[in-house]
């Protein structure tokens, strides 16, 4: 279990997180949602270990995150950041391999990961001229390579993994997330799109003003009243078994 408890972060007198908490269970997908400025990115950085909270604690399988060396942490969890510019003209497979612990089978792992994000045919191409969506999938492949080289199924943190993807690629990535959970990986994803969140999440954690405003299955969290409270819009949540859905056309600002 990857657990953030009672996290408090303030920068320059402004409170970004005030007692936020989230659990990531092996084999489960947790999704962070919430309006802009709710603290999703900050909580994500705290979970990744990039940022030390002033209050609260993050533990990974019982160990305090603050006490783990970067190399050890990297064997337990992989991170997909939002967008990545690579400074030098690396090829796709070189970028995917940057997270690989050096080893005999790293070439095979890189090939497998690129195949999973459907980029095997671009392996030898340069990274820089790729489209935003392709770059994001290369980075996802990099995280998969790192995860596979680590200990156990591990944990995967994804910051807006579908942000610059077209519809087909969004579905590809969502299916991949579900497959990974099926393999025992504990996944946390920050998502803006509530319908995608409803499709992929076992549990949704809704943040507002640095606190957890709601938490539970998609059906529990995505209700008319909750959405109104979180985003200040009034909507009618529909139902497309087994998940709720939301039509932005039917929403209006409250």
């Amino acid at each position: 279990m990857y657990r953030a408890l009672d996290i408090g972060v303030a920068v320059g007198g402004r409170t970004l997180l005030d007692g936020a908490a989230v659990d990531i269970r092996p084999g489960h997908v947790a999704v962070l949602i919430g309006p802009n400025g709710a603290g999703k990115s900050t909580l994500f950085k705290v979970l990744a270990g990039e940022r030390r909270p002033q209050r609260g604690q993050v533990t990974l399988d019982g160990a305090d995150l603050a006490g783990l060396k970067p190399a050890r942490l990297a064997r337990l969890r992989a991170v997909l950041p939002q967008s990545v510019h690579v400074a030098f003209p690396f090829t796709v497979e070189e970028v995917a391999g940057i997270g690989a612990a050096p080893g005999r089978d790293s070439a095979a792992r890189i090939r497998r990961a690129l195949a999973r994000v459907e980029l095997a045919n671009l392996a030898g191409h340069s990274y820089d001229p790729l489209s935003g969506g392709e770059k994001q999938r290369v980075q996802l492949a990099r995280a998969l390579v790192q995860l596979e080289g680590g200990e156990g199924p591990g944990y995967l943190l994804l910051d807006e993994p579908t942000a610059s993807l077209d519809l087909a690629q969004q579905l590809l990535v969502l299916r991949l997330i579900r497959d990974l959970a099926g393999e025992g990986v504990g996944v946390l994803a920050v998502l803006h799109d509530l319908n995608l969140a409803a499709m992929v999440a076992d549990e949704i954690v809704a943040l507002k003003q640095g606190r957890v405003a709601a938490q539970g299955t998609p059906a529990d969290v995505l209700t008319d009243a909750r959405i109104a409270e979180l985003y200040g819009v009034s909507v009618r949540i529909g139902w497309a078994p087994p998940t709720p859905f939301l039509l932005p056309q039917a929403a209006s600002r409250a």
Partner: protein
Amino acid sequence: MAVSAATELRARRPRRTLLALGLCALLVIVAFLASLAIGPVTIAPGRIVEILAAALRGERASGAALREAVIVLDVRLPRTLLGLLVGGGIALAGAVTQGIFRNPLADPGLIGISNGAALAAAVWIVAGGHLAFYLPPALADAGLPLMAFCGALIATVALYAISTHEGRTSVVTMLFAGIAIAALAAAGTGLTVFVASDQQLRDFTFWSFGSLGGATWQKVAAALPFMLLLAVICTRLARALDAVALGEAEAFHVGIDVQRAKWLAILGIAAGAGASVAVAGVIGFVGLVVPHLIRLMFGPGHRLLLPCAGLLGGALLLGADVVARTIVSPAELPLGVVTAGFGAPFFLWLLLRRRAALMG
């Protein structure tokens, strides 16, 4: 189809590494022999190998062979070894600077690090002359490269502190800060020169353009530990620099201790830039052009880039030195004039090429 392409890539990888390292090593051997062979007296490569082999066996030459042996062993060999050390050191320092600043334009010679080293060296020459009197001789000899190392270290740390904010390095800030640091160091050097004696002034002049002219075995020995330090640091840094190319946060995600990598890099850069300035003055463009060439030919992965840059830097600097001491013989051109003469147009050509590529 996809599988065969991937297999081919995998098969090509070790071959490419061998090819790259072999080619660079070959260039070093050619440059090494050329540097020993070419000069006012031309000595055949075969003779050079004989003389070196005899020296290694501990035999002393006599008669007619003595003159050639003296030229090779006492005059050209220290200069050649110093050239390899300095060329390799500044190319490596350049590659590490570019890697840690995530920018192919970063070069110790361009962004004030070498100027910081030159200022510290100038201060040592003026003030240290008095100090050296009281110091043990070993420390007095090591004083110049140590001071230059400290000067480079201060300049690098200042540059990094100014241009990096919350883990992000601003390229524009780095280049401007580099210009300012270079100007400040140059002003300081000018001030030092102002209070220098005539003899000290002569010592300074070669710094403005760099030279291997004053090569001695003492200088080789003084530079060697710094370059070894840089080489050892590079072996520990290759994977980190690949990861830092993604960004500092991302490098941390894949398991790099970024703070440690930064300090190692800064230490290595200061050692390479400082020691080379102490023994050969400020030599521009080698640190910029050599890593660029390697990236063009063999890709940007630092596990291959760093050793290749070290080798090619040594070979190219020796080549430039041969040109510098033969083209206007019996006089000698400053080495920095040659490296800038070739390097600057090459660099402009690279920029133009990149511009064309970027504009589609």
